[in-house]
C-alpha cells in the first residue's frame, strides 16, 4: 500500500526537482557584504569564494540558492538545499536543530553607534533604537543583554535594510559582525559618522565559536568531506588567497 502511494505521488510530482548526485545546493543570504553579497547581479564575497573552493575540493558543482536569513534553518530542514555557507555561527541553540562542520572563520561582533555618542556599556543605550538581523546571534545578544536594560531592539529581515534605516535616521545604531559592518557600512560614505564602540564581543553563549557550514543531522559523510576540504584549503594556501582578496588580516581567528 505504501509502495503504491509512493509510486502515485512520485509520478504526480514529476515537475518537482529531485536531489541530484553531483550538484551541491548551497544556501546564501546575499545581503551581508563583504561575506555574501551581489556584484553585477552575481553572488560574490568571502563565503561564496570559500564555498566554490570547497566544492572544487570535494568534486561537486556549487549551485547557490538565495534565502532570507530567518528561514535559513527551516529551509535546510525542508531539504531545499544541502548546506548553508553564509556566515552562520555555530551556537548551542542551532546545534539542537542542525549539524555544523568545523569553523571556517571567526570574527567578533561589535556595537556600532554615532561617533559623538558616549558608549559606556549596554545600559548607556537605554531608550535608543538598535537594529539587528532577525534570527542572528546578534539579535540573541541584543535581546538578552540590551533589551533587558531598556534598549529598543528592532529586528530586520536583512542586514542591509538595517543600514538603510540607520542612514534614514530611524535607528541609532546596530550590533553586527565587526568585519561585516566595516565592509558593508562604515567604509561607505553613509557610515562616516558612525564607529565601532566598546569591546569585541566574543561571548560564546550568544555568538558561538565561529562560522561553520550548516547541514542536516545525520549527514556524517558530507560533514567529514567538508571538514577535510576546509583543512586542505587552509594548508595549501587557497584560504589565504581568498582571505587576502577581502581582508587585511586572518579571519580564521582563534
Amino acid at each position, binding site marked *: 500500500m505504501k509502495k503504491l502511494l509512493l509510486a502515485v505521488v512520485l509520478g504526480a510530482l514529476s515537475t518537482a526537482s*529531485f*536531489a541530484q548526485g553531483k550538484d551541491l545546493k548551497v544556501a546564501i543570504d546575499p*545581503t551581508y557584504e563583504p561575506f555574501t*553579497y551581489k556584484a553585477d*547581479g552575481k553572488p560574490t564575497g568571502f563565503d561564496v569564494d570559500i564555498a566554490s573552493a570547497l566544492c572544487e575540493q570535494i568534486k561537486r558543482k556549487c549551485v547557490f540558492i*538565495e534565502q532570507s536569513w530567518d528561514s535559513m534553518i527551516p529551509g535546510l530542514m525542508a*531539504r*531545499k538545499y544541502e548546506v548553508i555557507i553564509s556566515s552562520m555561527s555555530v551556537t548551542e541553540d542551532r546545534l539542537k536543530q542542525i549539524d555544523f562542520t568545523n569553523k571556517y572563520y571567526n570574527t567578533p561582533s561589535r556595537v556600532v553607534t554615532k561617533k559623538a555618542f558616549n558608549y559606556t556599556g549596554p545600559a548607556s543605550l537605554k531608550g535608543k533604537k538598535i537594529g539587528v538581523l532577525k534570527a542572528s546571534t546578534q539579535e540573541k545578544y541584543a535581546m538578552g543583554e540590551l533589551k533587558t536594560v531598556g534598549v529598543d531592539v528592532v529586528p530586520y529581515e536583512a542586514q*542591509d535594510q538595517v*543600514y538603510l534605516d540607520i542612514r534614514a535616521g530611524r535607528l541609532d545604531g546596530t550590533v553586527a559582525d565587526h568585519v561585516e559592518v566595516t565592509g558593508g557600512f562604515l567604509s561607505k560614505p553613509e557610515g562616516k559618522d558612525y564607529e565601532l564602540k566598546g569591546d569585541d564581543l566574543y561571548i560564546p553563549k550568544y555568538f558561538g565559536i565561529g562560522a561553520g557550514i550548516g547541514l542536516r543531522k545525520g549527514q556524517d559523510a558530507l560533514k567529514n568531506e567538508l571538514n577535510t576540504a576546509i583543512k586542505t584549503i587552509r594548508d595549501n594556501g587557497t584560504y589565504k588567497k581568498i582571505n587576502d582578496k577581502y581582508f587585511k588580516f586572518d579571519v580564521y581567528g582563534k
Partner: protein
Amino acid sequence: MNAYVSAILQGAVLTVGVSVSALLVAIVLGLLGAGAKLSGRPVWVGLGTAYTTVIRGIPDLVLMLLIFYGGTIGLNNALEWMGSEATVDINPFTAGVLTLGFIYGAYMTETFRGAMLAIPKGQAEAAWAFGMGRTQTFVRITAPQMVRYALPGFTNNWLVLIKATALVSLIGLQEMTYAAKQASAATRSPFVFFLFTAGLFLVYTTVSLYALRRLNAHFSLGTKRGTL
C-alpha cells in the same frame, strides 16, 4: 545601477510567468469549484463552500507562507514515511503558482458560479431535448455565454492576481519586487527602484485592462444595451 535594473526586468518576466500560470490553475479550479457548488449533491456543495469560505477568509500572505513552508516539510515527511530517500524541492516558482492558483481559484469559483446562474435554464433543457450530452452542452451552449457574464468579475480577479504576485517575493521568488528590494537595500536608494517597479506594474495592469476590454467588446457583439 545597470545590473540592478536588468535584474528587475528579468524579475518582470518572472512576474508575467507566475501570474499567467497561476491564472490557468485558477481557471481550472474555478470551473471545478463552480461545477461542484452547482451540482446539487451535498458532498460536493459542502466541499465547494468550504473551499471558497476558508480561502476568502484568510489573507493571501498567510496562506502562501503556510503552503510554502508547511507544504514542503509535510511533503518530505510524507515521502519519508513511505520509505523513499528522494527529497522533493518545490521551488518558489511552483509554490507561488500553485498557491496563487489555489487562492484565486476560490474567487473564480464565485465569479463562474454567478455567471453560470445568469444563463437562462431553458437553454440547457433545450440542449438536452436535442440529445446533447453534458460535455457538449457545456462546450457549445454554456461556456460561450458564460464568458460574457463572467468577464467583469474575471477582469477584477485577474488585476488582483497580478498585484498578488508581489507577495510571492516574500517567499523568495526573485520576481520584480524581490529584485527591487535587494537593489534598494544594496544601493540605499529605495525610492527610485520601488517607483520603477510600481511603474512596471502599472504598465502590466494597463495593458491587461485594454486587452480585456477588447475581449469584452468581442463577446458582447449582438447584445443590446438599454439607453437611459
